[in-house]
């Protein structure tokens, strides 16, 4: 009824009304801020190296580069080449371990 008094301030052009950060974003931020994301990244990197995944991917890239011509490859190309195979060939144990870590982080962050 008395809407005019409590009218929210007109948002400026540059100051868009921020939509509520999604839960996901909040978690993400927590993950990063606590340093856990970095640790998870390192862990994943290490596991993937240990299990030979990285070498496989490098071999794929090399083969692709040889085929396409060493100077004709772009990073984009390689990413597109490697991503499907890469995602599919992560060992289950590695994936499980990482998921476990993430979940326990979520638990400890009380989300």
């Amino acid at each position, binding site marked *: 009824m008395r809407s005019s008094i409590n009218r929210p301030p007109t948002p400026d052009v540059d100051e868009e009304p921020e939509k509520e950060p999604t*839960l*996901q974003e909040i*978690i*993400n931020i927590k*993950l990063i801020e606590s340093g856990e*994301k970095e640790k*998870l*990244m390192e862990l*994943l*990197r290490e596991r*993937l190296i240990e299990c030979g995944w*990285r070498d496989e*991917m*490098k071999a794929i*890239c*090399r083969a692709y*580069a*040889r085929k396409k011509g*060493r*100077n004709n*490859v*772009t*990073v984009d190309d*390689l*990413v597109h*080449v*490697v*991503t499907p195979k*890469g*995602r599919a060939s*992560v060992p289950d144990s590695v*994936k499980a371990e*990482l*998921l476990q870590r*993430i*979940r326990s982080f*979520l*638990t400890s962050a009380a*989300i």
Partner: protein
Amino acid sequence: MSASNDGNSSPRSQFASHCFEDLLDSIIVDVASECHRIARLGLDRNLEEEEEELRLSVQARVADPSSSSEVNSKNVVDVFGQTHPAIAAEILKCMNCRQRVVAGRFAPHLEKCMGKGRKARKVTRSTVARSSHPHGSPVSVYAPYSNATSTNTAPNGTSGHAGEEYADYPYGET
């Protein structure tokens, strides 16, 4: 284990999967970027490629008559517009034996000239003595090469002189 962990469809699991894929994607980009670098810089000792490059470069060299002056330069003009004969013709004085040598024949000359000392190597100026060198080395007393015009050619066996191996360069005037 945890009650809220009910299968893959729970938002928590979803998030976990999503997060994992994020991490994986980053790592994939890392790998791709590194491989890209290796490919472009040619750091990969990939035989096929190397052979290919070798072949190509040989082809190029053959096909291109105006190759650089550092190799295959028979009457080819170099960057300064000079031409050089195939065998360098300048005459130098060998620092070892002080003979006159054609530059183009200098290396083989040196092989013979200095190589004679090879059997009894390990000579330094200070250690070589007029004494005990059982094998004939140029640094021995005989000093067969000191037929020089150099003012420093004191009779053989001056201790300072004995190091023929290193030439008399600092002594000789060349």
